[in-house]
């Protein structure tokens, strides 16, 4: 494991050395630390309530995650934040401004990566950036300069004249990110930024996002990859059925809801179940598998392996995925 981490670090360093080009610092607003303030946000589609009164705040410079299973209301929530969907009721302030009145001003200061690929297939890589810059009224010369910097930052310089349709999935996603940054936004909104990417591309995107964080850009992202949330988010909420289940820092959430260790036991016996019950241990019974949540308990693991299961038993550290599954349940969402 340690070796693996070292490899990751060295790959990352190489990547950074390959891309020495720096982007200009984004102007962060220190006087107003809360960038997004949502209070009792409600969104209805006809009779269906997609977002059922959520409240959260994103402070300047942080990465805030919205996690949830499919159909939980993640996308609907952030669509309201970037002014794509009108809110049914509640209060929503972005940069202290009212989205229903000052939408143009707000939208000029945010960058959005939508879930579906919305790159312009009629245009080349460079043209995608330049045309997008024109929507922000960025003068042509400045747009060219920024586009050049962004292509370098996202390692796309060599494909500047390629048609978008010729790009790989990872390149497309990097171009979407580059496009979202063309207006030097204060807030970057990412809707599942790495869904469908291979591990290499995903780590590349994460590295770029961490770079951006260091420059003071605030990020609001949705994801259902727990690793992504743990890697990137300072704080997060887990939502389901339009409601917030929990809010906090990833490590804190793991400590509060799972504990330090997780013991997984395959093919559990009745004796094991009664043992767990009698010792008042916190566990989840999945029928063919039992998951025990506990504090640092090497001794417990030893007892279980010795007395109740000879094989198919493992101990590992609790992670965000445990929190997520514990809170949102294990049934399929389709």
């Amino acid at each position, binding site marked *: 494991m340690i070796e693996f981490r070292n490899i990751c670090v060295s790959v990352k360093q190489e990547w950074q050395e390959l891309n020495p080009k720096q982007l200009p610092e984004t102007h962060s607003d220190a006087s107003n630390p809360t960038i997004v303030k949502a209070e009792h946000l409600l969104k209805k589609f006809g009779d269906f309530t997609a977002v059922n009164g959520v409240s959260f705040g994103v402070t300047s410079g942080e990465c805030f995650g919205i996690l949830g299973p499919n159909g939980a209301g993640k996308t609907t929530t952030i669509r309201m934040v970037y002014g*794509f969907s009108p809110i049914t009721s509640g209060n929503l302030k972005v940069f202290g401004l009212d989205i229903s009145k000052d939408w143009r001003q707000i939208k000029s200061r945010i960058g959005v990566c939508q879930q579906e690929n919305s790159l*312009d297939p009629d245009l080349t890589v460079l043209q995608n950036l330049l045309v997008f810059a024109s*929507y*922000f009224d960025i003068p042509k010369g400045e747009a060219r300069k920024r586009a050049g910097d962004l292509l370098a930052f996202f390692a796309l310089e060599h494909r500047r004249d390629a048609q978008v349709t010729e790009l790989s999935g990872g390149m497309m996603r990097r171009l979407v990110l580059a496009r979202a940054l063309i207006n030097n936004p204060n807030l970057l909104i990412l809707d599942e930024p790495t869904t469908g990417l291979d591990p290499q591309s995903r780590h590349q995107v994460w590295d770029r996002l961490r770079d951006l964080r260091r420059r003071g850009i605030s990020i609001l992202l949705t994801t259902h990859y727990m690793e992504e949330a743990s890697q990137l988010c300072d704080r997060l909420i887990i939502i389901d059925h339009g409601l917030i289940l929990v809010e906090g820092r990833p490590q804190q959430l793991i400590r509060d809801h799972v504990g330090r260790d997780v013991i997984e036991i395959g093919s559990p016996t009745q004796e094991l179940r009664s043992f767990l019950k009698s010792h008042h241990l916190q566990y989840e019974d999945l029928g063919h598998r039992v998951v025990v949540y506990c504090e640092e308990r090497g001794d417990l693991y030893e007892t279980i392996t010795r007395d109740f299961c000879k094989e198919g038993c493992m101990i590992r550290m609790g992670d965000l995925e445990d929190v997520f599954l514990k809170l949102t349940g294990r049934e399929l969402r389709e």
Partner: protein
Amino acid sequence: MSAMFPLRISRRFLRVWQRNLTVYRKSWKISFIPPFLEPLFYLIAFGIGMSGLVGNIRYQGAEISYVQFIAPAIIGMSIMYNSFFETTYASFVRMYYQKTFDAIMATPLSLEEVITGEIVWGATKSVIAAAIMLIVISFFGLLHYPTSLLILPLAFLGGLAFGSIGMFFTGICANIEMFNLPVFLFVTPMFLFSGTFFPLDNLPRWAQQVALIFPLTHLTNLARSLSLGQGDSSISFGIGYLLIFSLVFFPLALWQMQQRLIK
């Protein structure tokens, strides 16, 4: 809905227009071919093929050749096709398949500006097509100048009318196959019964009245008057009709697209 979304249109709609122009310029050589060849095909087919059968035509008291009669109608049809197909099929592809509108709506542009840009672009394509056709047809000596130059602003007005109703259909149609309906029930009857290939006087009285509903009837009449250099009172009536038609369907298109896309 309209109260919630007051019309949010500024000059920024031109950005969408520019985006379409950028794409158009990438393939202008191909885009120029249809308006260049179309009048040639029609003039050859009707001028050589049909003229012998038809001979001359009495139009508004004057004797004109059949080719002279249909030449401005070809321009009128092309004005219709260019804007209508731009704001139906082409806009639908951008909206539905390419998610271009979604991307733009995450920038400081409003949906209304996107739609306005699309419709004005459709009208612009009508003007480009009309300009090319004017040049080609002029070589046959079939156009009276300088009045025929007024066909260019007319193309823009006609383009707005057909572009607006096209966008209205785009707001309604669930999928791209559904455009067959407005094409078959709206565009094709107009193509045939708007005084394009034969004078409306040949039709029974009631059919002439019905034809007056068609914007293409007015567009064809106007183009014909300008190409022959003969104006009368029907010109202001025709322009008025196209203006009102645009003023009705432009807000309807905006409203229908709001219904469709703002959720």
